[in-house]
């Protein structure tokens, strides 16, 4: 049963109504007067950017057909609600892959545009929005507008990373990338300091399409973690994702205390016997390791969790280390800390989160005010370092923080559909009269 909550299950929000769309030929009235509307896909945004408390959600997950697939040129056009998993099932056997892939395949195509997602190849390919050729946007005035870099260009820029606020995306056309097999040649290397990590990024960025690191954020002292780099390979042979497991119930909130997480991190770091391993892996376990466990958000219990993803420019390494210090001192962070150096390819999206610098994402089990205070503190450091925080992951940043991270928000607000809004948007623009 669809339950219209976000992945972090925070904050709690109740839509006044939910409207499902099944066909592009349906006439959908998006002008409902007072209750604002918001598109909802698969609910994989962590915070409240996909929620609309008291408003109307437009569920697009049934709008999931392909429209055209040019398998010579690798151009695919599909309806908004198709999941990346379903899209991959069609394109991979025919020798194509997503130009940019997030950490889960359970997001919709339109969600990938609306959040301008990034992936392990950001240093080479930029964001998802860089590969969007065109899309159609339904506005509450009843118009359906095709947008591309040349047509309705302003709406095109605003809708990429537009958080679903500029209208309802009904279909998207993207350029895919060629692959010779569904498998990658992957290397995983242990690092024991920040300097070692930076050196690995440095030596890998030119030759490796995909890089990503896992960091142990509970540890004081020098940073440690595992650095992964990979390229699609010519040969196959590795197994795909096996039958997924499922977390069948909400775990009690004390299950993930800092001792448990410490042991877990120690195990991840030590399980790899050698400092460097190399092997062939199927794309599914490489890109989507967490998809093996369905409903993994339930391990954080009914109280839910916050994910915090921030970015600081390369010249603000001091700020980055300061944040790591504070996280480890707080002993609140969880085991899923992902580190990536983003490249300089600019996104067409007006409100895009990715820019050149270091980004770290990690979970914080919800411990109420203690957690909120810590994240507020981290925001202070990110702001001072000239960085920003990712709205798709956020459930708590202050309006002041948001507006300083995204000074272009005022320009963006002129392109919004007047009948669209979200819990997130109302929160981060509170008191701004917009």
């Amino acid at each position, binding site marked *: 049963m669809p339950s219209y909550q976000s992945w972090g299950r925070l904050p709690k929000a109740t839509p006044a109504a939910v409207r*499902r769309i*099944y066909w592009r*030929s349906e006439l959908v009235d998006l002008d409902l007067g007072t209750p604002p509307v918001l598109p909802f896909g698969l609910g994989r945004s962590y915070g409240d950017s996909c929620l609309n408390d008291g408003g109307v959600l437009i569920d697009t997950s049934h709008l999931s057909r392909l*429209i*055209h697939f040019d398998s010579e040129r690798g151009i*695919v056009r*599909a309806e908004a609600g198709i999941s990346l998993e379903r899209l991959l099932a069609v394109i991979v056997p025919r020798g194509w892959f997503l130009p940019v892939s997030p950490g889960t395949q359970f997001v919709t195509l339109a969600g990938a545009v609306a959040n301008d997602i990034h992936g392990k190849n950001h240093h080479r390919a930029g964001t998802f929005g860089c590969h969007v050729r065109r899309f159609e946007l339904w506005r509450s005035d009843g118009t359906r507008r095709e947008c591309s870099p040349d047509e309705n260009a302003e709406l095109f820029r605003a809708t990429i990373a537009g958080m679903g606020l500029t209208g309802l995306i009904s279909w998207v056309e993207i350029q895919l990338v060629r692959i010779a097999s569904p498998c990658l040649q992957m290397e995983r290397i242990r690092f024991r300091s920040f300097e070692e990590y930076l050196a690995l990024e440095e030596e890998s960025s030119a030759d490796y399409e995909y890089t990503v690191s896992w960091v142990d954020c509970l540890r004081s002292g020098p940073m440690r973690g595992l650095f992964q780099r990979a390229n699609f390979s010519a040969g196959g042979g590795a197994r795909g994702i096996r039958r997924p497991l499922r977390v069948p119930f909400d775990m009690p909130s004390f299950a993930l205390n800092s001792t448990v997480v410490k042991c877990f991190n120690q195990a991840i770091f030590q399980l790899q016997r050698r400092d460097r391993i190399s092997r062939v892996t199927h794309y599914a376990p490489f890109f989507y390791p967490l998809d093996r466990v369905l409903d993994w958000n339930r391990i954080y219990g009914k109280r839910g969790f916050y994910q915090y993803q921030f970015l600081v420019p390369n010249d603000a390494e001091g700020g980055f280390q300061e944040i790591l210090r504070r996280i480890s001192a707080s002993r609140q962070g969880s085991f899923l800390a992902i580190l990536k150096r983003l490249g300089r390819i600019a996104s067409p999206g007006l409100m895009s989160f990715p820019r050149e610098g270091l980004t770290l994402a990690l979970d914080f089990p919800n411990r109420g005010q203690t957690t909120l205070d810590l994240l507020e503190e981290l925001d202070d450091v990110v702001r001072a370092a000239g960085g920003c925080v990712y709205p798709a992951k956020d459930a708590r940043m202050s309006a002041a923080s948001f507006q300083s991270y995204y000074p272009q928000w005022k320009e963006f607000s002129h392109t919004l559909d007047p009948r669209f809004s979200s819990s997130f948007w109302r929160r981060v623009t509170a008191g701004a009269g917009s």
Partner: protein
Amino acid sequence: MNRILITGATSAIAQQAARHFAADRAAFLLVGRDPDKLAAVADDLRARGAKEVDTVVVDLLDLARCSRLIDEAVERLGGLDALLVAQGTLPDQAACEVDPELTLRELSLNAMGPITLLLRAAAHFETQRSGCLAVITSVAGVRGRRTNYVYGAAKAAVSTVLEGLRGRMGEAGVSVVDIRPGFVETPMTAHLPKKPLVATAASVGERVYRAMASGDAVVYTPWFWRWIALAIQLIPRSIFAKLPI
């Protein structure tokens, strides 16, 4: 199973089943009421690898039109290997009770149309000595429940015809598949209050594909409905009549 005629092709379950056949490079004739929806389904199947997709807009209440569809499919696809009947509505039981004409219309769409198609296709497959007849019926056909007996009667009629055809067609090497889903989340059921044990159209559609590919006879989907249906069949009449289901 290379050439398939699907009636009610825009139904959620039919679309999902067809995607699997498309990946096998099948050719389709899709039948439905709404040209825009048919076009959307056809585009989807083409993009997924279908060899050829043709569509025809038909009001399936027109039984004479139904009976011509088989020949039309044979002609357009250059032969026919399978018929999947997925057309159907969920009648408003209360409205049917006070409106016999509405009841007959529902029976026509849910039973007479499918039976017409089945008999025509059976004749074709019998001569050809191969083929697959498949209908999406329902667990609702197992017994006449007071809340849903018009729908149940239609589905039971089709299931009975399928059973008879299975006897007749066995020798000719034609498979006869009766797919009986439980409660499925589709546009047809979107207005109803949510029930437990609900299945997705994707999982039921995949089961339809597998059943047709392997020529299963009677398939309950999800699987546990076989046992629920059995339990319902075993309830004594005197008790069943008192149940508010």
